[in-house]
């Protein structure tokens, strides 16, 4: 339903809300990309800046929630409009939490590279870089799917999520061999596993957002279904 509302103001208000969400999405993506960069550059100062900038995501979160409450009270939305506002409320939460996960990666930079600390080898860190790029792309696709309200793109996010599961398993296996080779790596191992968990959750939020797009479009709640079912459902519409 691309036709606008009779009350044009309502369209403008939803458009404004959507722009807030897209801004949040871009911010969450750049937070993780920069956190990864700070790790690559071994730059704790950059990491501190990233952590400070997380408050901007929190502000956008509050602003978007206020806007949603105001729109529900004023416009009493139904059908797709209602689904859209409810889903956007959830997307906002996912983006805010994705930002929290990016902050954890910035925290790794501080932990590893502040003066006096002994950093891990590049080999151990390589997985974090690879995974961060992968989940950034997932969230970028989710935001494209949101911007275009395109379920096919949402499907691509879910497919990437499936591959992510496989990647995580092989990363853990690889890291385990490092510990077996040299048990002194255990401290770094724990930090890196926590980082990987943060990236996994970041990807999970991207996948949740893809589910919210499908809910807006079809009314189907796919949060608790298997990925296979998710993709089938997209194909039906």
């Amino acid at each position, binding site marked *: *339903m691309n*036709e*606008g*509302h*009779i*009350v044009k103001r*309502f369209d403008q208000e939803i458009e404004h809300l959507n722009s807030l969400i897209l801004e949040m999405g871009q911010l969450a993506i750049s937070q993780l990309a920069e956190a990864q960069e700070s790790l690559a550059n071994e730059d704790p100062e950059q990491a501190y800046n990233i952590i400070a900038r997380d408050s901007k995501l929190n502000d956008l979160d509050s602003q978007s929630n206020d806007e949603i409450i105001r729109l529900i009270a004023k416009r*009493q*939305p*139904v*059908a*797709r*409009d*209602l*689904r859209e506002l409810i889903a956007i409320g959830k997307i906002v939460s996912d983006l805010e939490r994705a930002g929290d996960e990016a902050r954890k990666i910035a925290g790794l930079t501080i932990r590893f590279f502040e003066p006096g600390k002994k950093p891990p080898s590049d080999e151990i860190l390589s997985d974090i870089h690879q995974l961060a790029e992968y989940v950034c792309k997932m969230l970028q696709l989710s935001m494209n799917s949101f911007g275009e309200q395109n379920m*096919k793109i949402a*499907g691509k996010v879910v*497919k990437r999520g*499936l591959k992510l599961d496989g990647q995580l398993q092989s990363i853990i296996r690889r890291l385990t061999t490092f510990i077996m080779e040299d048990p002194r790596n255990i401290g770094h191992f724990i930090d890196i596993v926590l980082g990987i968990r943060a990236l996994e959750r970041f990807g999970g939020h991207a996948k949740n957002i893809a589910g919210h797009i499908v809910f807006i479009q*079809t*009314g189907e709640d796919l949060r608790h279904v298997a*990925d*296979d079912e998710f*993709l*089938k*459902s*997209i*194909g*039906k*519409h």
Partner: protein
Amino acid sequence: MNQTAIEDAKPIERNNSDDPLNDPNYKTVGEVTVPNAAMTTKNVDVYYGDKQAIYNVSLDVGKNEVLAMIGPSGCGKSTFLRCLNRMNDTIDICRIEGDIRLDGEDIYSRNMDVVLLRARVGMVFQKPNPFPKSVYDNVAYGVNLHGLSRSKSDLDDIVEDALKRAGLWDEVSDRLNQPGTGLSGGQQQRLCIARAIAISPEIILMDEPCSALDPIATAKIEELIDELSKHYSICIVTHSMQQAARVSQRTAYFHLGKLIEVGATDIIFTNPSHRLTEGYITGRFG
């Protein structure tokens, strides 16, 4: 994991004809029949002279259900409502075809007593229209007309019971002999509802019953509708989407004289199937 799941999925069939008026075979989306119908309507056409106002509408009214009829002005929802107790008989140029049955009985048959029919299918109008009589007489009028009371005390009981069911007794019990027209708008409307239920109808038709009322009076009527649905079937025509969503269990959407979609109110207002229904309830066209 089947990577081609998207391509393999069977598409959902939707009836999304944009121009149902020009589609002679248009079929209403949703289930028009119910298992426990108080009233059934099949293939109803209504004409005003040469102009057709209702096209091939079939829709059941379930026992103890509140059925909301919504749609833009001129879509035929009030015309259809008025067919259900033959109120359209009063319009000379109005002609009705199709089959409408109350408890299996054809309401348009020659044998049907229209006065009795309207007792069984009561009606509440947009504007409260109490008789220029006392509160008591307003409620007692229909009871006397149909000879439903055996004695004065029996009549008193019926009047009191009807006023209680209409949620008005506490407000008028000390002024039963005062004119009904002296009550507030909301009280007058509840008086009209009391008048309708005093003669124990099976179905109550309501044509925009709250459009002339303030939000408090509207809330009282809506609460009353909820209560009344335990005893009666209610068909309500309303222009308020929120009211339809609040009070009804089923909603029927009319457009250009056709019944576009009918379904559970919970579904219609969260995920309607037809794009015309979606467009109307979300305020995308009038």
